[in-house]
């Protein structure tokens, strides 16, 4: 690690930001030095995004001060922040997909000449991209680029505007471990030149690997700032969660029966929305009561895998069978009647109809048959009583069964989803990122339900980007990379490093391990 000076680049003190019903930042203290990589660590909902949005001028703090190089500053807009030298690389890219790389980079820069000089702009972009190893063709259209390349454009955007402080929000969410290493090297190069990097993450090993110092947020407050070399993942985890976090495997009361297959995919291939290959000759099985984890960096076909199994997407080849019987591809209703339940990643707009009531959502899959409906007419009494039963059984906190689901908290939204899916008495459950964005209590409750279902004999396919979740719940772990299953290991022999390598496409036979 390079030597960081002690000049303070950015200091935020006493930051308070309130939203309806929640205090996102509650007196946060944060400071980053010139020439350092400073990680901002915290769980989902700890207040990291809010803080960074304040620093980049998107939000105004209700209280508190921001000091840039000692000067008390207020940002009236994101542009003001950018002009002051603070640039953010968002998790969800802000790019115009039909424009070229160069056009995206120069957008919003008022120092560019009125008549655009394409050649000069492209030349400057090339110079910057060479200097920092961010290879990208200035003339390529953004929609043609890969996710990693698009991220490079985002970084170039802020560098082009002369940003001295770079904030990266969960940048490795879309990268393989190997690509992440390349990014870290780039960050080191920038910091060596005297810039400051603020690295927002919830991933402990990355924070340990790349940062000089770490500030941990929890519940909207700063709980500690440590020098990375004096800390460990255990320490950080404790700060982050507030108690000793035990990465133990869940104890199952009913062992899984791998040989009694409930779900089987054989040589399944499928295309993604763009028409390119998303699933490539995928074969897998899930046994009765087995929890099979599917690990992998988002974007390697996991979404398409869930959709194909659920029937939302037609496979271009291969077969899917439940309990030995083939399920017709691409027909949701056939999948449902074959006993496949699906908890999708996008809860509120795919799994549920957000403006509809809890009770209406709970019949989303059962509304076509008796007793919920008779002769095409819906029986309101049944809908209501069905909802009342499920709300009680699954402990859903809602003012009434007629409340629109979008008003419920994240955890309760997920409970409604699970309640509905389990009420269909499925054989197979496909759960995609089931605990993403939930608070700790909700996470535990959801995981408990999954285990409960497995104990009842449901075959669970758990697709998650959270390796820790997979390692603690799964009996067996599959790894997806570029639409293929590249690893199939029993949980006892799986560890983060091996999985990380597989996720990055490495061929384990050729490695030293």
């Amino acid at each position: 690690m390079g030597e960081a000076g002690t000049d303070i680049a950015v200091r935020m003190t006493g930051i308070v930001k309130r939203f309806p019903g929640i205090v996102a930042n509650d007196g946060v203290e944060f400071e980053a030095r010139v020439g350092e990589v400073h990680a901002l660590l915290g769980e989902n909902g700890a207040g990291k995004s809010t803080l960074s949005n304040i620093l980049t001028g998107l939000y105004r703090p209700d209280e508190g001060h921001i000091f840039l190089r000692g000067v008390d500053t207020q940002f009236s807009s994101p542009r003001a922040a950018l002009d002051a030298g603070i640039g953010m690389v968002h998790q969800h890219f802000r790019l115009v997909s039909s424009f070229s790389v160069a056009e995206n980079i120069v957008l919003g820069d008022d120092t560019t000449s009125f008549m655009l000089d394409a050649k000069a702009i492209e030349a400057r972009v090339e110079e910057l991209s060479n200097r920092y190893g961010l290879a990208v063709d200035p003339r390529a259209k953004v929609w043609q680029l890969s996710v990693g390349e698009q991220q490079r454009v985002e970084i170039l955007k802020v560098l082009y505007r002369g940003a001295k402080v770079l904030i990266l929000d969960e940048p490795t969410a879309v990268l393989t471990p190997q690509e992440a290493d390349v990014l870290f090297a780039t960050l080191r190069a920038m910091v060596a030149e005297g810039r400051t990097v603020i690295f927002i993450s919830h991933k402990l090993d990355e924070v340990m690997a790349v940062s000089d110092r770490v500030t941990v947020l929890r519940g909207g407050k700063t709980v500690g700032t440590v020098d990375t070399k004096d800390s460990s993942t255990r320490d950080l985890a404790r700060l982050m969660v507030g108690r000793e976090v035990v990465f133990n495997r869940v104890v199952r009361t009913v062992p899984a029966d791998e040989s009694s297959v409930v779900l089987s995919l054989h040589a399944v291939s499928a295309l993604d929305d763009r028409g390119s290959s998303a699933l490539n000759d995928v074969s897998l099985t899930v046994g009765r009561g087995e929890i099979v984890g599917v690990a992998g960096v988002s974007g390697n076909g996991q979404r398409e895998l869930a959709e194909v199994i659920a029937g939302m997407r037609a496979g271009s080849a291969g077969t899917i069978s439940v309990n030995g019987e083939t399920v017709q591809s691409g027909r949701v209703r056939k999948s449902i009647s074959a006993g496949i339940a699906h908890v999708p990643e996008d809860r509120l707009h795919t799994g549920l109809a957000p403006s509809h009531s809890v009770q209406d959502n709970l019949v989303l899959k059962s509304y076509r048959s008796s007793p919920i409906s008779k002769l095409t007419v819906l029986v309101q009494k049944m809908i209501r009583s069905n909802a009342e039963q499920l709300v009680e059984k699954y402990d859903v906190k809602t003012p009434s069964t007629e409340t629109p689901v979008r008003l419920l908290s994240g955890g309760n939204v997920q409970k409604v989803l699970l309640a509905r899916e389990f009420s269909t008495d499925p054989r197979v459950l496909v759960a995609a990122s089931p605990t993403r964005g939930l608070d700790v209590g909700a996470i535990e409750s959801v995981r408990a339900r999954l285990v409960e279902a497995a104990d009842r004999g449901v075959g669970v396919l758990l697709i998650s980007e959270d390796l820790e979740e997979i390692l603690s719940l799964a009996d067996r772990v599959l790894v997806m990379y570029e639409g293929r299953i590249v690893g199939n290991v029993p949980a006892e022999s799986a560890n983060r490093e091996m999985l990380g390598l597989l996720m990055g496409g490495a061929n384990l036979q050729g490695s030293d391990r």
Partner: protein
Amino acid sequence: MKSLFRLERRLEQPKSLNWIVPLVSVAAALVLGAIVLLFTGKNPLSTYWRILESAFASGDSIEGTIRAATPLAFTGLCAAITFRTGIVNIGGEGQYFMGAVGAAWAGLFFAGSGKPVVIVMMVLSGMVWGAMYAGIAGILRARFNTNEIIVTLMMNYIAGIFLDHLIFGSTSYWRDPKSFGFPTGKMLTPKEYWPRVNVFGLELTLGFILAIVVAIALWFMYTRTRFGYEMSVISDAPNAAKYAGIPMRLRIFTVMALAGAVAGFGGASDVGDFRHVLDAKGLQMAGYGYTGIVVAALARNNPLGAVFVAVIMGGLRNAGFALQGPDFPSGLVGTLQGLILFTAVAGEVLTRYRIRVRSNNAEAVTA
């Protein structure tokens, strides 16, 4: 952007807004209209009074109002059906035309078969033609995801040209072969005219009564049936509909065809109740389809509300015709309708957002 007002999303929508907003909208429109009238030196109060008189004061005026309201009820329902699902169908105009074409054909073809048969065939034919015409746009939207706004707009135009072609541009079945000089359509004989229905001593058009029936049927469908549930989910979250296995394409097509059928029903009423002929010029000048959109917007896409609002708009239109003359400015009807639509959609915004007034540190919330 620093501004005095800010719109902030509401978390809940009180049900009372459903009828308060349209009421306030009409009131606001009347106020704005009064400003326009004053600006040009007319007396708003006396103008409004005359409109009210012409529309509702006597049995005759009410009958006239209901007559004017009949086509608007159908096109209003047509627009409401699709808007409810998030599909922007502005092709009610063209679908109405096609319904008139179909009904005129049936009226001529089945002439002499007895009134009940003729009426049924005219309605069926009108609905089929309207449904098919709308169905084309529906297929384009469902299959190719083509923007239905422009497609239906273009198809309105094409339908108008088709009407012209049938009457003026060719010797078709619809054209009266005996009309030299200025071509006209072949008229139905009085035996095929639709009867009036006597309600409380007033002679109302059959079409209006049927429109009420259709509205009730639609309302029932939306609130009680599986189809209505599916449509509601589709408009709320299309992905959720896909997730639940609702066949999106089929439903979108069905909704368009249904809307076209209702507009076509209106076209049948146009021929049966009013013109008794395929009146190419008259149909194109009437603008029923576009007014129907105003009706649907003000009624917030509620089928029963649409019929009620159609009566209001019909009153306005009726008054416009009755009062036409040097004394009464032309174009006032359209102006007021436009203002009502403005205030209706602006009011719609208030159901989803609140206004926040900024005053330094404190913030006050309005409504």
